[in-house]
């Protein structure tokens, strides 16, 4: 087990109870989404994963060992668990892209040649090589997010923790970020842990879902399992993906014989519609290619 949280509670100094007895576990190589409305404690939970916050009660285990909060073991943990913040302006503090990406590797005490190599590779992975010498204030938000990601990748972590990776991005930039993350997971085996409230992209991305509300995990499971529970999703101020919602209405109001497992993505919906229209997929394909 990569991460295990055991009954973790966290109370901020001002008295707010942000996490209330959270227990969950992540395997290596998984793609996990924490889904919840604003202010439900997602960010607080994530900040426990790299030891920025220490639980008021409960325990965090990394590779079955409890986290140690001494600065040396934290440095090791933070190298392996990369954290990307919601607002890239919080993270990008250096005057140029390259300097910012080099910050992490330099802190690890790597030799200069290796640092330069990691920086180049990280910028190449996120497709920002040509902006290496630009200051961050010349970049768009989507570009800043990618640079923030590169800053973490340059430390060669195994786990990527991202707080709202697609917030405030235009559709294209957000799909590009998601594709990049999926590629990192599939090609390089990164474990991905994401906090989000973008329900439409979650099914494209995650294989495991935790729904949070008021500092608690209220539901966990695969996207299919969770989004079929429409009532509960609504009760925590979230909604199903639009496409799922459409099929649910078609079933409930128009009594269409929709599959019990509602489609979550455009691809699944397309299959469902074709099935409903009684057109075989391969036949349709032939029509398309003709």
């Amino acid at each position, binding site marked *: 087990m990569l991460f295990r949280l055991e009954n973790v509670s966290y109370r901020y100094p001002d008295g707010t109870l942000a996490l209330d007895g959270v227990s969950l576990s992540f395997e290596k190589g998984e793609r996990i989404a924490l889904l919840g409305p604003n202010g439900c404690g997602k960010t607080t939970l994530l900040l426990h994963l790299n030891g920025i916050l220490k639980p008021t009660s409960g325990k965090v285990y990394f590779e079955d060992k409890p986290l140690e909060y001494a600065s040396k073991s934290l440095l090791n943990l933070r190298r392996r668990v990369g954290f990307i913040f919601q607002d890239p302006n919080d993270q990008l503090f250096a005057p140029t892209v390259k300097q910012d990406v080099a*910050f992490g590797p330099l802190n690890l005490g790597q030799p200069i040649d290796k640092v330069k190599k990691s920086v180049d590779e990280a910028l190449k992975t996120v497709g920002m090589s040509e902006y290496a010498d630009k200051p961050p204030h010349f970049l768009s938000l989507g570009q800043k997010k990618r640079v923030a990601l590169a800053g973490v990748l340059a430390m060669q972590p195994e786990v990527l923790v991202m707080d709202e990776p697609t917030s405030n991005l235009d559709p294209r930039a957000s799909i590009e970020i998601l594709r990049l993350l999926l590629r990192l997971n599939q090609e390089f085996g990164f474990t991905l842990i994401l906090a989000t409230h973008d329900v439409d992209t979650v099914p494209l991305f995650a294989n495991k879902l935790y729904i949070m509300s008021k500092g608690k995990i209220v539901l966990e499971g695969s996207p299919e399992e969770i989004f079929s529970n429409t009532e509960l999703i609504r009760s925590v101020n979230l909604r199903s993906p639009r496409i799922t919602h459409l099929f649910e209405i078609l079933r409930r109001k128009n009594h269409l014989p929709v599959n019990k497992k509602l489609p979550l993505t455009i691809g699944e919906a397309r299959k469902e519609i074709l099935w409903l229209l009684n057109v075989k997929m391969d036949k349709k394909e032939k029509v398309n290619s003709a």
Partner: protein
Amino acid sequence: MSFINLCAQIDRCAYTNALAKSSPTTKVFFALSALILSVSLPSPLVPIIVFLTTTVLLLHFAKIPAHFYSSLLVYPTIIVALSCLIIALFFGYGEPLTAIVLPWFGWTVFKSGVMMGVTTFFRVEGALSCLYFLVLTTPMTDIFITLRRAHMPKILIEMSLLIYRYMFVFMEVAAQMYTAQKLRLGHSSWQKRIRSTALIAGNLFIRTLEQGERTFTAMNSRGYDGNIRTLDDLPQPRRVSFIGIIFFDVILVFVTLLMINLQ
């Protein structure tokens, strides 16, 4: 908010001009030595030579748009010209140039005063052009690295690094607040303008504290241990250009000596 635009424009110039990639140490050395010589040598000819040289370097070699450079020069020049006019008319001693004598009022303009006004004017213009040379051709990051090479105190460099970066973040925030206030008529009268500006200032102050906290957390996540390390991969200065600059400085001193001898 045109001040913000100007800052951003100068910054953009520094990163995109044709000399941006050349050694910052050389540029800093040139600008500083020329600046010191043009304000300290007695002859007004020196700052004139410095001004012409930097202008040629800026316009021809760095390819800074002439209208941008001249727009930067206009306001300081007007202010300096006025001050120097006052120096020329009211200062000085010794040999009078002209005198107005009225029954209740006497006013003498001295030769040395005029000389001083003219010299001061050229000195300021020369120094100004040196600073513009540095600011318009050298990206801020490079200046930080040069300062580090020169063993400036770390704390100063780290602070300026963070200030430089977040200055642009907060300029954007300030511009947004200003627009938001303007849309709700927050700047429609003199009093309202003062009140609204104070509100922006207060708000920005709180925001900076919050931003500081968040940035600190983010830096901690990447293994910050109290030192900001930067990657120094800039070109090392070429010896040829150093010798060239020293040669230029020697010429300036030589010109001064020649002028003194001629007098």
